[in-house]
Every structure is written in structure tokens, then in C-alpha cells.
């Protein structure tokens, strides 16, 4: 039984590894300059594939994802910095194209709600403990 569990865990672990390593960049897309290629990969990982939506363009083989990957590489070759490339994409496709939502007034709840929930939870526990102590004492 234990060995079976270990086997299952190993399979899951390996599946996870292979998932992290998968990308759709084709050999002819790769830039010769390794530093530039690394920058392109890094940006691509943060850009949503608009056709498949829950994949980055780095992982997607959709034609639009490929076009966007090529566009990012062309812009890097032209000397654009990362900020300019992100701006170019969000100007056209909106913040939806970013897999990491930016910190803005409209995304305030998204970023802070978890902390608010956490603090509320801690307060509830704290008050509960205090009350039960008080009940025990009296």
C-alpha cells in the first residue's frame, strides 16, 4: 500500500516537472543573443494567450501566440525595453493580456481582500478565545 502511494506521488511529481518545462517556442523563433532570448521568454511567460486564455504565449502554440512571441523578439532586437513592450501590448489588448494583474485602484480588492479576510479570521479567533476565557473565569 505504502509503495503504491509512493509510486503515485512520484508520478504526480514528474508530471509537475514536465509541466513546468513545457514551452511552445519553435527553434526558428529563438534569438541568437542569449540575454535577449531570456528577456523574450520572461516577457512571454507574463503575456496571456488571448485565444486559449489560461496559457501564456510562451506555452501556447496558437498562431496569435506565435505572432506575439515574434513581435516581442523583434521589439527586443529593435532595442525596446521591457516596459515599452508591455505598454505596447496593454495599449492594444488591455490589462487582460497580463497574466499578473497590475496593482491599480481597480484591482485593489483583488490584491487586498485575502489580507482583509486573514485579519478578520484572526480577530474572530482572538475574540472567541478571550470570551471563552472570560466565561471560564466566571
Amino acid at each position, binding site marked *: 500500500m505504502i509503495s503504491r502511494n509512493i509510486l503515485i506521488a512520484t508520478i504526480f511529481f514528474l508530471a509537475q516537472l514536465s509541466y513546468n518545462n513545457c514551452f511552445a517556442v519553435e527553434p526558428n523563433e529563438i534569438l541568437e543573443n542569449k540575454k535577449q532570448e531570456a528577456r523574450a521568454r520572461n516577457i512571454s511567460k507574463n503575456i496571456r494567450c*488571448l*485565444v486559449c*486564455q489560461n496559457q501564456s504565449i510562451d506555452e501556447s502554440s496558437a*498562431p*496569435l501566440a506565435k*505572432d*506575439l512571441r515574434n*513581435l516581442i523578439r523583434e521589439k527586443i532586437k529593435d532595442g525596446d525595453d521591457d516596459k515599452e513592450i508591455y505598454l505596447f501590448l*496593454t*495599449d*492594444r*489588448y*488591455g490589462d*487582460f493580456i497580463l497574466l499578473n494583474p497590475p496593482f491599480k485602484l481597480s484591482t485593489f480588492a483583488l490584491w487586498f481582500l485575502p489580507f482583509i479576510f486573514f485579519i478578520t*479570521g484572526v480577530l*474572530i479567533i482572538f475574540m*472567541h478565545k478571550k*470570551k471563552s476565557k472570560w*466565561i471560564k473565569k466566571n
Partner: protein
Amino acid sequence: MKNQLIKIPTILFLSILLVLFYLLVIDRDPSKLPSNLLNKNAPEFVADSLLDNEKFLSKKELNNNITIVNFFATWCAPCREEHVYIKRFSSEKKIKVIGINYKDNPEKAIIWLKKLGNPYSNIAIDKKGKIAIDWGVYGIPETFLINSSGIIKYRHAGQITKKIYKKFNLLIKEIN
């Protein structure tokens, strides 16, 4: 008292779960998001023209008139489906319609238009899909409504159906 202390967080938790489940289940199609270019100037471009020997200049084409810009290709089945409405814009409503032929074979496109009828006053060739990216296109067909000052007033991603055709006509009346 103790009962209530368990009840409140449970109810809270379940209601959050319900909200999240609702958000998961409802149809939230991102192609229905308004274009980020809404109320901005239509991106400018120069391209080869499918019908003309002269270059297609967007600055010249998207000026002084309410214009419909339609991204299409012969390999795209919904484009064929919506073609009857694109034709109605130009023939019945007398609206200027510009086509952008997306990643297509120009010869096939010319044959396709001869067969189905050509509603476009001019057609730009977007061989590599770069114009489409500049316009924030998700996938074709996609149709933009441009006012007489060259500003994008509406974008529809996907096929133009009877309902969308009516919506376009209402919007045209509004901006006219």
C-alpha cells in the same frame, strides 16, 4: 453562544464559496470585453491593397466618413457566414466598408469576392497579421465601427449575426 460562533464563519465561508462558484459558472467571454482602443484613434498603417495597385493608406481611407473595418479571410468559415451582413452595410445602409484581408492568399481572396460579392471599397493585405495585432484583434472575424473623425466607436469580436447587425445600425444612427 458557541453555536453562533461556529455559524457565522460557516455562513460567511459558504457565501464566499457561492459567489466564487457563480463567477466560475457564468459565461464570461473575454472577447466581449470592450476593445482597449475604444474611443481612441484607429491605428494608422500602410499596406498593399488587394484591389488596387496603389498602396492602402489608412489615413486616407478612414477619414470624413463613418466606416466599418472588417478583418476577414477566405479560410475563415464565420467570415463567409457574416458576409451577407457586411454586404448589407454597403448596399442597403450605404456605409463605407473597408476590408483587411488577414493572413490569406490574395488570389483566393479575389476569387472568393467575385463569387460572394465585394462589399469593400478597398482592402488592405495583412499578410503577417501585424495590422491585426496593432488593432488589438483576438481572432477573425472582427469588425470595428469608426466615426467620421477616425475614432473607434465599437468593436465586435466574432461573427456578425442578425442581432449584431442591428446593434451596429443603431450605433451608426447614434454617431451620425
